[in-house]
């Protein structure tokens, strides 16, 4: 049998938070393999453990049990070699640095060439805002900066945790296609794992959607999205897109999901 190499693989990963009063089972028995270059969305309701899953893959959280490999190595090792880029919901920019300064930060930390920063700003459409400070930017612009900053270490794997979750609907919609443009403009296909609770967002962006149930998070569906690329807003009105939407909505239906039953 030929050995298939995956960029990311999770083998029976479970995680329990024990710092609260009651142990909280966040993830249970997750098996997930992601080939290099794939854009995967992890879709699920709030509190289903999707952010924890992302932090486990990124080496920021150690799972209670199970094995994780990123590029054939432990996640924290992959992180140490700057394989992994992060974009969080909170852009967490440094308020005392300009846009350019924020994008330069990871270059300073990793000792890469600072001249790369202007290229990243051009890629993310921020060139004109290089000298602005974060508080002078809209939420969408801040998130673009966070994306440029994550790309600065040239990660093979990009982990995005509801990056557009705090944006207004209009900005959010345009940022999806911006992200697609930036992702496909790169000279190499990065693997992306994108956490969201928006079905449309997951479908517009991804090659594949993984649906997580709520508490504890389990994988309840895993589908390939066979919509043609490059994708444009028109795709959201296609019948295939609507079929996918219906299917995912059904998968997310709370009655299908196991979890605490709220009684009146």
């Amino acid at each position, binding site marked *: 049998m030929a050995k298939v190499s995956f960029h990311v693989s999770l083998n029976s990963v479970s995680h329990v938070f024990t710092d609260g009063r009651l142990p909280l089972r966040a993830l249970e028995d997750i098996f997930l393999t992601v080939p290099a270059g794939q854009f995967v969305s992890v879709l699920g309701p709030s509190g289903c453990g999707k952010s924890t899953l992302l932090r486990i893959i990124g080496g920021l959280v150690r799972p209670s049990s199970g094995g994780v490999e990123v590029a054939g190595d432990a996640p924290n090792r992959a992180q*140490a070699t700057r394989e992994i880029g992060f974009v969080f919901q909170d852009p*967490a920019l*440094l308020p005392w640095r300009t846009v350019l300064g924020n994008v330069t930060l990871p270059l300073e*930390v990793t000792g890469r060439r600072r001249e790369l920063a202007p290229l990243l700003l051009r890629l993310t459409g921020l060139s004109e805002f290089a000298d602005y400070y974060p508080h002078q930017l809209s939420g969408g612009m801040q998130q673009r900066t966070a994306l440029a900053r994550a790309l600065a270490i040239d990660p093979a794997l990009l982990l995005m945790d509801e990056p557009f979750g705090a944006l207004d609907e209009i900005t959010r919609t345009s940022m999806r296609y911006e992200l697609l443009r930036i992702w496909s403009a790169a000279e190499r296909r990065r693997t992306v794992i994108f956490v969201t609770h928006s079905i449309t967002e997951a479908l517009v962006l991804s090659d594949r959607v993984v649906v997580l149930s709520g508490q504890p998070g389990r994988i309840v569906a895993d589908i390939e999205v066979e919509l043609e690329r490059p994708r444009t807003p028109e795709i959201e009105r296609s019948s295939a897109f609507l079929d996918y939407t219906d299917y995912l909505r059904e998968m997310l239906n709370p009655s299908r999901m196991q979890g605490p039953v709220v009684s009146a």
Partner: protein
Amino acid sequence: MMRSVLRVIAGCVVPPLLAFALLIAFWESYIAWRDVSIFVMPAPSDIAERFADDPGFFVEEGWWTLYEATLGLLIGSIVALLAAVAMSYSRPLERAIFPIAVAIKVTPLVAISPVLVIVFGFGVMPKLIIATLLCFFPMLVNATIGFRDVNPAQLEFFRSINASPWQVFWKLRAPGSLPYIMSALKITYPLALTGAVVAEWFSGTRGLGYVIYAAWLNLRTAELFAAIAVLAVTGVFIYAVLSLLEQRLLFWHESVRSVR
């Protein structure tokens, strides 16, 4: 442009000046009206006259006191910042340092001034020590909180790019603590001035504290008040410089942005 400058002058400079002038006028006329002896309370005109007699004397003594206070502030702040770094990284070190800091804080420093005179004589040393000790505690407490108060999302980003602890400190914790350090300076610089003046009472041969003490002994009340006025102006000057510095350094911080 010209109009906006005029508006600033009309809005920010005129009201306090007017209030101050009224206060002086009241003081002057009260003393003239009740014929108060100059040994009890000098009139503003007496004070101004004494100052105008020899302004160089007051400015020189004022510089000396300011010099002592500033040097004490620098030493106290640097030691406090180093201790704050240690405390913010290690709870055992915090437990070791903090009780000493509190002891320094609660001991009335006026009480140890005579001791310092015995040990260090009448030179600059006792003034420096008092100013340093007064500055130490507020800076220590503020800076420790400042170094610890880090946005968790920013810290997580630094972790995600595998930044070293050194980089996390210089690129995240240190700039993030600046608002706390600036607030501490606004408290400690005037404290250092107080400390220097008090130490000069006990062991001064120079400085405004010494001038006040000598004038008091000889009932030269106009001179005493002139020295106090110079001290007040010095304090206001320090505060203004610190506020300007704060505006410059903390343009990104809510505390400065919300004022604009």
